[in-house]
């Protein structure tokens, strides 16, 4: 009875907090976009603007109006999904973002899955067999993973697997030949899923070959974090009495570790995963540039390089919103799983 009320209370408070934070983020981005630059209209319109374009931008942005009215205009645009028009592609920024999003989601998603599949068992083994060789390997991998400069890792991968071994392609999502002869039907926008769903195995192989290297590079950082997190929380959990009891009952070590201990370690790990998802989203700016992956990251990188400010701000707002929502979901999940969170 009490739990249900506490849970609902927690959920409501948490959602309200997210809304406040979202609002605050809008304030921050407004500040960065309009208040800091010396000439916001020029930023919006691009290099070498005509006087007419500047005048139009001034009116659209409401630059002649007082600051709070400008903010209201800004918020109004945001709520309507108007993030401006990209100077580079001449399309509405929101259109650009939505069209490039599936490619990045596929890349980051695959990377996170790899990170989890490798990281969790590695962390568990490392925690259960302290100071064994696997412990040392996992510690090396985890600290190495977070210390590496991802573009460099990508480039080294290209050097090794493309230039020297000739096993994998150097970049892009799919080879031109395959995309012409065996085009993938667009169902979800994820090449790996769509090609399987439509029975297009040639394209699946090709897409897989293209995604494996960048996904591994994306996975490096989250894997490092996950391995670390699992290892340290498991090490604590394994000291607990209930684990000792389970072992005393004769339950085999592996089942004890995976079934009983792991569950308790998952909480902070999920939080860390959410954090690293957002981190990876921004890392893909660099990784997608190296692999010429046609996703949001490459779009962002190009926008930054060409100083396409509407696009830069649009991407920033988009990622910020995704990050806040993700944290909200993770926190709510934690509240459901772990009673201590909503009671404490």
């Amino acid at each position, binding site marked *: 009875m009490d739990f249900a009320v506490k849970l609902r209370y927690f959920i409501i408070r948490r959602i309200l*907090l997210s809304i*406040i*934070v979202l609002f*605050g*983020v809008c*304030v*921050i*981005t407004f500040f*960065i*976009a309009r208040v*800091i*630059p*010396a*000439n916001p209209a020029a*930023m919006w319109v691009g290099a070498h603007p005509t006087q007419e374009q500047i005048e139009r931008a001034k009116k659209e942005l409401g630059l002649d109006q007082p600051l709070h009215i400008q903010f209201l205009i800004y918020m109004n645009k945001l709520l309507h999904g108007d993030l401006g028009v990209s100077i580079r592609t001449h399309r509405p920024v929101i259109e650009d973002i939505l069209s490039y999003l599936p490619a990045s989601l596929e890349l980051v998603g695959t990377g996170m899955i790899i990170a989890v599949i490798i990281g969790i068992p590695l962390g568990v083994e490392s925690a259960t067999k302290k100071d064994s060789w696997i412990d040392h390997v996992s510690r090396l991998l985890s*600290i*190495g993973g*977070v*210390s*590496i*400069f991802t*573009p*460099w*890792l990508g*480039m*080294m991968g*290209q*050097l090794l697997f*493309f*230039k020297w071994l000739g096993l994998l392609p*150097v970049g892009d999502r799919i080879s031109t030949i395959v995309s012409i002869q065996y085009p993938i039907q667009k169902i979800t926008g994820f090449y790996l899923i769509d090609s399987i769903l439509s029975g297009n195995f040639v394209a699946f192989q090709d897409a897989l070959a293209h995604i494996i290297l960048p996904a591994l590079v994306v996975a490096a950082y989250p894997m490092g974090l996950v391995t670390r997190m699992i290892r340290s929380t498991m090490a604590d959990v394994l000291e607990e009495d209930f684990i000792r009891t389970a072992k005393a009952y004769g339950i085999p070590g592996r089942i004890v570790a995976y079934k009983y201990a792991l569950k308790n370690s998952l909480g902070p790990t999920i939080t860390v995963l959410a954090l690293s998802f*957002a*981190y990876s*989203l*921004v*890392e893909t*700016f*660099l990784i997608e*540039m*190296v692999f010429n992956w046609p996703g949001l990251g490459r779009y962002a*990188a190009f926008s*930054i*390089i060409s*100083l396409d*400010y509407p696009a*830069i*701000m649009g991407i*920033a707002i988009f*990622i*910020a919103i995704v*990050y*806040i929502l993700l*944290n909200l979901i993770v926190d709510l999940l934690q509240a459901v799983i772990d009673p201590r969170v909503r009671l404490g």
Partner: protein
Amino acid sequence: MKARFREIRYSLYVLKRNRLTYVSSLFVLFLIFVAVIGPLIVPYPEDAYGAVHPERAFKPPSFEHIFGTDDAGRDIFSRVIIGARISLSIGVIAIVLTVLIGVPLGLIAGYMGGFIDEAIMRVTDMFLSLPPLLLALVFAAVMGLRGQSFNNVLVAIAIAWWPWYTRLVRGQVVSLKERPFVEAAHAAGVRPLKIMFRHILPNCLTPILVQASLDFGSVILTAAGLSFLGLGAQPPTPEWGLMLSIGRYYFLNYWWLATFPGLAIFVTVLAFNLMSDGLREALCPRLRRF
């Protein structure tokens, strides 16, 4: 005084016990040493900035050029060594800036409490809800309007990282506020500002130090990422991230252009991360396993 001494010596002893931490700490000292005396020991110091030798371009690693030469004929080894200077100084200055912003805010928020605390923490939460890399990127891009410069990187990083320190310090202050020594100082009539900085702050130094050393590696990576995208260091500065971004065009044919700068980044960040990991284990009493 004697107690402090003993504590330091014990911490050093714990540090030495962990082989990995000890080695990486020594390596960090070595890196700092190399960064400081860099320009004096490199074979081609002029290559680090202005000099170009197009006739020597793209030479593979050899005895004259240990890491080979780049697209302008410059010795990569010299550039990498001098680049250490740049990366380390970015790290130090950026973190100092971050601490200078974050710590006082945390002290004030924690000590004053009430409305000021709420206000500061709300703003901190808002900044915390953005991925730091993103904030640094966007800020550097916008500030780039005023012309690309080095300082953009430093300020951008400080703006992105300060909230973590504010939250850390505030937590510390809140728990220390109730301690008798604070109460005693207050009763003796010490002004709040003095209490904060002379009494409470020294007790917070350890977590701040640990966090700063943990962040050092990330700051170097962030700075490299910024220059990789063209924000921050500009050619011909021998910054590692910049060298990678230029090397990207040639590395498939001339592998040494990209391999060595990136290796330098990896080794440096790894050393700092290992050292600070061990530092955290040594300095945080609750993690000490006896």
